[in-house]
């Protein structure tokens, strides 16, 4: 029989803490994903008692996703795909001389977002899982379009360049195997491209390497310390004041993260973008987004950790992993004799209680572990810029190669870096390109497979309440501004009369 108090033994807490630090290290290294961290730790846990093993696996998944935000903030290289949205404001804030605030916000908001995700998992999982099952190609198509619409939000004032950038991303996403027909497209006989242009090297190059090129183009910057300002972390009181001021953003992002995470066809990366867009759309000061504002830091970081809890929902209710990390962890759980299914939530065996407790405590332990990681990583920022940028380049090279041991990815990463540099020159935003690359396949495949299913009938894409809601949200994304103005104008006129 499993004894739940075993969780609090030193023999569990020790490996738990160590594996979370390990997750931190892997997650903070660009190119090494959270999935990889979990896949590496699982074989070790086979030799552990069940709850110890599970605490290690769940701890790694929580800390690795959080850790992706650290290099995104310090070096403008997202550590994991889920952190791509975090580069926008966190890095800008660091550039302004305050790296302590975004990093502290990352730690606390990741932890809070994660806890909300776990609470949803414990209390409303069966209902949410049923909802998630209603999603099929038609709904995922609109979700993809909704995500792509975020690129319009991301680059207000520069709409045309933003659209060009997003289109470029969508075009790049057409390279590789066409899932619907099985044919290769635009690979020119290079089998290494058959899986398409992977967005991790593009992301690393476009954000990280382009930043290096920018500095190389202006060598006078090189002599400075990497980042100005103090490297002290702000007091917790100040950080909590900021979080309290934006408590609605935290809550909204965490809920968006949980729901999108619960969908088997979408994960933390999409969740982070959508919550960033939603935060900007509802903000009182949307013009500050992208220049290093607090909400822009909070939204994606709360969402991506909440998405972990969300991904657990279909995994535990149906045995369907919501993302690749959950797939690996689910395999480990089944090893320990856990049987996923609706019964899990009714019986509440000791094992399930243990998992819930572990998942929740992992989010709390994220705070001390996160600060250890930050302290280590921030040492980099004290170094002179010429050293830091060599490190960025090194990280980028190693990271893009390590992902699947392929030199093509290194080439793609460098090409993306050069492209990103010139896009910066034209003041063309890079984020929409990444979004287009991530979501291009989602939109295309779901549309074409949906058409295959419906036998060429378009109405299947609109005759469903979820589709209708998503279409409505997309409509709001584009037209809420003019619409509000129109309503405001009408109201004024009515009052005058």
């Amino acid at each position: 029989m499993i004894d739940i108090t075993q969780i609090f033994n030193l023999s569990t807490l020790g490996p738990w803490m160590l594996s979370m630090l390990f997750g931190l290290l892997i997650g903070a290294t660009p190119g090494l994903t959270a999935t990889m961290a979990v896949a590496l730790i699982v074989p070790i846990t086979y030799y552990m008692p069940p709850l110890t093993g599970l605490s290690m696996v769940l701890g790694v998944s929580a800390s690795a996703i959080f850790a992706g935000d650290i290099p995104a903030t310090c070096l403008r290289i997202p550590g994991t795909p889920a952190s791509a949205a975090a580069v926008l404001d966190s890095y800008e804030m660091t550039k302004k001389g305050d790296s302590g605030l975004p990093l502290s916000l990352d730690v606390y908001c990741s932890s809070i977002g994660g806890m909300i995700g776990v609470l949803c998992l414990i209390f409303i999982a069966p209902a949410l899982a049923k909802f998630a099952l209603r999603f099929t190609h038609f709904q995922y198509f609109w979700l993809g379009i909704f995500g792509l619409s975020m690129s319009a939000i991301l680059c207000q004032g520069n709409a045309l360049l933003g659209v060009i950038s997003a289109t470029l991303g969508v075009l790049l996403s057409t390279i590789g195997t066409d899932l619907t027909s099985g044919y290769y497209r635009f690979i020119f006989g290079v089998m290494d491209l058959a899986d398409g242009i992977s967005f991790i090297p593009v992301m690393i190059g476009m954000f990280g390497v382009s930043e290096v090129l920018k500095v190389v183009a202006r060598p006078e910057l090189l002599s400075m310390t990497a980042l100005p300002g103090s490297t002290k972390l702000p007091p917790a009181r100040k950080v909590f004041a900021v979080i309290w001021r934006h408590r609605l953003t935290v809550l909204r992002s965490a809920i968006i993260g949980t729901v999108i995470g619960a969908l088997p066809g979408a994960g933390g990366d999409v969740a982070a973008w959508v919550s960033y867009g939603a935060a900007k759309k509802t903000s009182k000061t949307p013009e500050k987004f992208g220049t290093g504002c607090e909400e822009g830091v909070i939204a994606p970081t709360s969402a991506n950790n909440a998405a972990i809890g969300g991904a657990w929902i279909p995994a535990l209710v149906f045995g369907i992993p919501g993302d690749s990390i959950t797939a690996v962890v689910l395999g480990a759980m089944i090893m320990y004799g856990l049987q996923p299914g609706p019964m899990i939530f009714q019986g509440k065996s000791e094992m399930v209680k243990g998992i819930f407790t572990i998942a929740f405590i992992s989010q709390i332990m994220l705070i001390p572990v996160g600060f250890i990681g930050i302290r280590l990583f921030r040492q980099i920022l004290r170094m002179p810029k010429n050293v830091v940028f060599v490190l960025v380049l090194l990280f980028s090279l190693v990271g893009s190669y390590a992902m699947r041991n392929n030199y093509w990815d290194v080439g793609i990463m460098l090409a993306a870096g050069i492209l990103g540099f010139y896009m910066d020159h034209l003041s063309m935003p890079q984020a929409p390109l990444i979004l287009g690359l991530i979501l291009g396949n989602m939109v295309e495949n779901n549309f074409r497979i949906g058409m295959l299913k419906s036998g060429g009938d378009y109405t299947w894409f609109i005759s469903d309440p979820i589709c209708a809601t998503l279409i409505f949200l997309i409509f709001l994304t584009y037209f809420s501004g003019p619409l509000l103005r129109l309503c405001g104008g009408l109201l004024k006129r009515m009052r005058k009369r």
Partner: protein
Amino acid sequence: MKKLLLAAVVWALLAGTALAAYPEKTIVIVCPWGAGGGTDRVIRAMAAELEKLLGQPVVVENRTGGDGAVGHGYGAKARPDGYTLTCTTFELATMHWMGIPSAPTFEDYEHVAQINDDPAAIGVKTDAEWKDLAGFFAWIKANPGRAQFSGTAKAGIWDLARLTLMDAAGLKPEDALWIPSSGAAAAIPEVLGGHISAIACGIAEQKAQLDNGELRALVLMSAERSPAFPGVPTARELGYDVVYATVRGLSAPKGTPKEIVDLLADAVKKSCESPTFVDFMQKNSFAISYRGPAEYTELLSRIDADNKTAMELGGYLKAGQ
């Protein structure tokens, strides 16, 4: 003179070790599929066992891409010294039929041993109107073109499996639609949500849903019933002589010395009997099915021929082959 003597001694030592028993350095196993997937998990567990037996580190390296062509091709072209091995999978016998340029065939390796197989099963929702395979096939016959299957990409192994079974039952390929998906994990929610009629994939991939009663397996395409799922009838019992299973094994590049292949095959055989490995495989419902070098090669050659027939059925065979 002293230096020369020293050099001679060093040389003799080095030469001595070179002749000494294989292995004397790290062995790399190339896995053509991603970290965390079924193949990756099986081969990592096997690598841990081999490491214990061989006394040298055994490292798994994921080289993914091109539907398995990248990793398989890399492993086939490696130096045949026994230090770069490949975890070969079923796709070795489909890739080249699909006209993938540079895809190796089973003839490009010295096969070491088969480790595992996972037979195809067709599953439907428990509350579906079809209680058995006969009922399902009769419904397809009465409603041609309405049934929708999913489980992997178009022309993937499970698509070929259901094509072969439908053909054996006298159904035409176009009587049912194949909805492409990135894998079983993406297709299962489609069945559970009632969006498609049936899933065709390895029975181990449906284990969780079969165990908690959300899916019902109508047929298992293996020679014998699975001990893990004794209630699922085999295709042969139902009157169709169809056996379709994915396989995973270990292979060395063509030209690897026979002594090394035999030594490795022996190590794999011992690992397949090791309690830790057996426990791992059982808990994950991966079936252990060891086959030696000659038998594994023969199996791959048979699968290769079967796949050609199945791909012709689906109209997937590229012209000129």
